[in-house]
């Protein structure tokens, strides 16, 4: 296998799965926003094969969490909060953060769990499980001891103000060597990620415009926009872009220390779930 990969000089594992030697901070987002990123949703919202032997498997479908990432901004005050500084109360930023930790933070790239590196299918399926499990586990841990975090579909879920425990968030940041002030917003869309400006049109409903905000023609009602003046801004909403895709790297150098601990947790959970069933 190593010969086929051109990795004869590597001792043992492919370099993607050997321990990281340097402590250089990992770039956020993992993929440059100007580049295309393959879809994660396609992998995790579809059926996943769970191998019980090297050849035989059963398929499961995990709970869908890669959704509701289009925030609707309805006031100037709230829009300024979003664009002013990173804030983990927003569900898309929470999801981007957890995807980043589970992949880039662990040192696992898309080529390991998707394709690109020649790996036995049993192991590739395990890495898919690992990424999903770690995303869910970190989201759970962000809820603190009171488990205040909520997922799409939960009664307490709110995409614009999803509860989380700040102390737990900082602890997870420390585990992965990330500054708690890191920016996990997807700023690649219109108006630096805020989205497109929509205005209300009589008999038509909301209509997308190409204008900028702030500083454009249209204004929210709490900043002076009036329907009678024809400059009332209805809401700002981004395009339907799977933002988390940019937070999973296409390639990694190798496993991180935190990643190894998390992989061990995933192995325990994986074996426990199947053999303990």
């Amino acid at each position: 296998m190593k010969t086929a990969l051109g990795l004869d000089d590597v001792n043992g594992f492919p370099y993607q799965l050997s321990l990281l030697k340097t402590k250089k901070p990992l770039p956020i987002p993992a993929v440059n926003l100007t580049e295309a990123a393959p879809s994660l949703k396609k992998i995790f919202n579809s059926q996943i094969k769970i191998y019980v032997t090297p050849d035989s498997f059963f398929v499961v479908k995990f709970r869908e969490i890669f959704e509701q990432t289009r925030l609707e901004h309805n006031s100037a005050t709230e829009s300024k909060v979003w664009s002013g500084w990173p804030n983990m109360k927003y569900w898309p930023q929470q999801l981007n953060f957890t995807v980043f930790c589970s992949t880039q933070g662990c040192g696992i790239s898309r080529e390991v769990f998707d394709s690109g590196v020649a790996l036995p299918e049993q192991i590739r399926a395990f890495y898919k499980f690992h990424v999903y499990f770690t995303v869910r586990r970190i989201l759970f841990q962000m809820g603190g001891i009171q488990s205040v975090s909520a997922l799409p579909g939960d009664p307490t879920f709110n995409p614009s103000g999803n509860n989380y425990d700040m102390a737990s968030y900082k602890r997870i940041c420390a585990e992965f060597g990330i500054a708690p002030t890191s920016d996990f917003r997807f700023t690649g869309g219109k108006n630096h990620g805020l989205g497109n400006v929509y205005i209300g049109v009589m008999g038509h409903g909301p209509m997308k415009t190409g204008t900028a905000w702030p500083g454009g023609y249209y204004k929210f009602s709490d900043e002076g926009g009036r329907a009678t003046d024809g400059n009332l801004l209805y809401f700002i909403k981004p395009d339907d872009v799977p933002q988390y895709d940019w937070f999973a790297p296409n390639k990694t150098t190798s496993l991180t220390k935190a990643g190894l601990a998390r992989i061990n947790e995933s192995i325990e959970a994986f074996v426990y779930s199947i053999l303990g069933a």
Partner: protein
Amino acid sequence: MESAISQPNLAKSVQRYQLVVDEAKARLNLAVAPMAWLMPANMTINMASVVGYNNKLKQAVSGTKLGVNNTLNTDTKKSELKLMQGGPSKVNPPNSHPSNPVHKAVMAVQNPKPPKQVRFKLPTDEVGQIKETFQETEKTEPHEIN
């Protein structure tokens, strides 16, 4: 899996992992990353006792090949049914009544020696023995009825 996600603390997870591997009698021979726990390649649930498994937790070292390693954990350990800690189950199996012929046959195999016969020494009644005396009652002649 959902319960594993919502475990408040995974500190005891290694013990749990060990317990599951031990109970399920699976062989740890699948390496997914160096220094990570080895996991069983074959995770079909085996209900019967198996000869030839090794449950010691081991980590993949840097030279370990990715995938199934048939050269790993070749030590075999004979697994056999043992009595549980604290003795056998107190729950009586369906055939456990002594009069049941199945039970008799099983017990005969398990205990070839005949069971000890216990004799009870009962105290003798030395004081106040009841002596039944039969005193002949006076035989009265039947009255003649004139």
